[in-house]
């Protein structure tokens, strides 16, 4: 026990500040500003591997290490799509995962966000489209933000998640004026 405590004390806090959001990663803008206010940064993420080589998974796991400390930002991974605000999807979508991915998307309550991860999630990557692969994630479910990279670094993934949560820089004014009248 003493050794454990000594180790904790000697390492101290290693968490680094998070990156800024990046509009270049945004594919579409769906969230109403008021919803964003409600969500704040208390975001629940459900990860779905839809056919990845497991490289992206390694970098997603890194987000929980004390240096990126995702939970410190109020963002956490949850075990069910029913608890989730955001789906983080990796891989080209294999045909064998297509139904599971669509059902997971349907099981996620509205309003929901989708971030597609990695070169495969963005374009199909090296696997492309084939008898076994549908290619990029947006072929199967709507995608808000796409983060390229093979695999993308944890900083880029975090940037993608924060981009999904923040208003588009160019559109933020219109979003604010539009919020005066209820959507739909």
């Amino acid at each position, binding site marked *: 026990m003493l050794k454990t405590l000594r180790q904790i004390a000697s390492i101290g806090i290693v968490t680094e500040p998070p990156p800024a959001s990046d509009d270049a990663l945004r594919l579409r803008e769906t969230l109403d500003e008021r919803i964003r206010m409600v969500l704040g940064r208390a975001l629940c993420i459900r990860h779905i591997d*839809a056919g990845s080589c497991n*490289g992206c998974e390694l970098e997603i796991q890194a987000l929980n290490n004390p240096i990126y400390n995702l939970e410190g930002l109020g963002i956490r991974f949850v075990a069910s799509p029913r608890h989730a605000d955001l789906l983080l999807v990796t891989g080209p979508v294999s045909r*064998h995962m297509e139904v*599971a991915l669509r059902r997971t998307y349907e099981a996620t309550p509205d309003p929901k966000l989708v971030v597609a991860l990695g070169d495969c999630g963005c374009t199909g990557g090296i696997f492309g489209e084939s008898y076994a692969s549908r290619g990029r994630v947006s072929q199967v479910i709507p995608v808000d933000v796409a983060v390229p990279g093979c*695999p993308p670094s944890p900083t880029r993934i975090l940037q993608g998640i924060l981009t999904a949560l923040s208003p588009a820089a160019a559109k933020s004014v219109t979003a604010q004026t539009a919020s005066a009248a209820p959507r739909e």
Partner: protein
Amino acid sequence: MPLRTWWEASPALAAVPPTRGLPVTAEQWVQAATDAAAAGGQLLALWATVDAADSSSVILRAALMWDLGVLVLELRVRDDGSRYPGLQGIFPAASRMQRAAFDLVGARSDDADMRPWIRHAAWQADTFPLRPGATLPPPPADVTDDYRFVRVEGDGVHEIPVGPVHAGTIEPGHFRFSIVGEKVLRLEERLGYVHKGIERRFMALTAMEGHRLAARVSGDSAVAFSWAYCQALEALSDCVIPRRAAFLRALCLEIERIQNHLGDLGALGNDAGFAFGLSQFSRLKEELLRTVEATLGQRYLLDAIVPGGTSVDLSAEGWSHLTDRMARLITETRRLKDIYDEHSGVRDRFVGAGQVSPELARRLGLIGLAGRASGQAFDARVDLPWPPYDALLPTKIVRAEGDVAARVAVRFDELMESCQLVQLMLERLPRDAHRVEVGVPAANTLGIGLIEGWRGPVFIALEVEHDGMIRRCHPHDPSWQNWPVLEHAILGNIVPDFPLINKSFNLSYSGHDL
């Protein structure tokens, strides 16, 4: 007859570790496999290919690994619906490989289990994706298949279906538990969800670009797969890589081993309720990843191994950076190992959980890291060494207990051994080139690559066309052998221990599903 007789009758194949190939008849196919099992050999891989010379027959290949090297049996079967003798009775791991070979190529064994394995609903049962020119109509939307799981019946028995989407950040697969109370009576796995057509994709690439796809067969074993691929390609091209290139590749391979062990040791602590372990090991891993990015250009070395050598060289600055990191990693790991060893709560969860006895491990063909934790003393770096391991002489880590604690202990020891190997390689790093040109690979012949990745032996069989395109590339991950053993390791344990036991194996879905 002794396996040595088969071995001596077989001509050598293009490969770095001693590898031989032998065309056999159906009787010899069974006899040679039986003799291999009697000689302590194991099935390394089994795959099928449509015969290039005669498209009305299919060639089945079984790679058998034993003390002297790898023996590849070649059985030619007529493509008229006739069945070849299955090897399941000799090597239980053959069953799923044979079912996959049928799903993809269409040759059927005479073993009893004829359920599809890799194929779900993406293509029809009478079409075979790996046949040249196979046209596969797109499947109708929302069709799922109805897989026949084995039912366990009796008073109080119920099923828990888990997956394919799991509760954590892991890959997709389906587990069907049959339980009474909390105790597991049976686990049946259903894989194939991440099948994305890798073997067919290889056929659209030139031999010189296949290493990129090989690295993405299983991202956590990128170095092992891309090296095995390049080893096969270089053997077909009669290319011998410079000594510096071999050292740099081994450096990358050991770094990959360290990265994975650090990640898993943390996750195992966490699964045993010791979150401290996850924080500490994930921090160590992140520090290492940053050092690797600063010295070799990538956090994960997916593009480091290229035909003829490595894509990057190590600078003098990078050299000292890595040297410092290894020294610190050894000190910190030693400290954490002490804490893990002394923590009674962690020991209580680790010891006795998910036990696979050496005898069961031998019978089922458990290999790699998990095999070494159950007394199966094979490590290709030691037993079939290739440069530079023939000069480095690593120590083989073996334990006999076969439980989670043993697999954790093997990881700790291998982690330390790998750090020391990296230090040794940095000390002795040769000064010649890190890359050479690779000539035209020979067509119409089989090239073999075999690399001991962090999970176990990674195997590649490569055939090239005259125009430089890949005719057939079969990548084989040790997860094929070890997934079925996990079904046994969980028996009698409680459901809440499954994540811990599963993590102690940490098998690849992508590397298996292809």
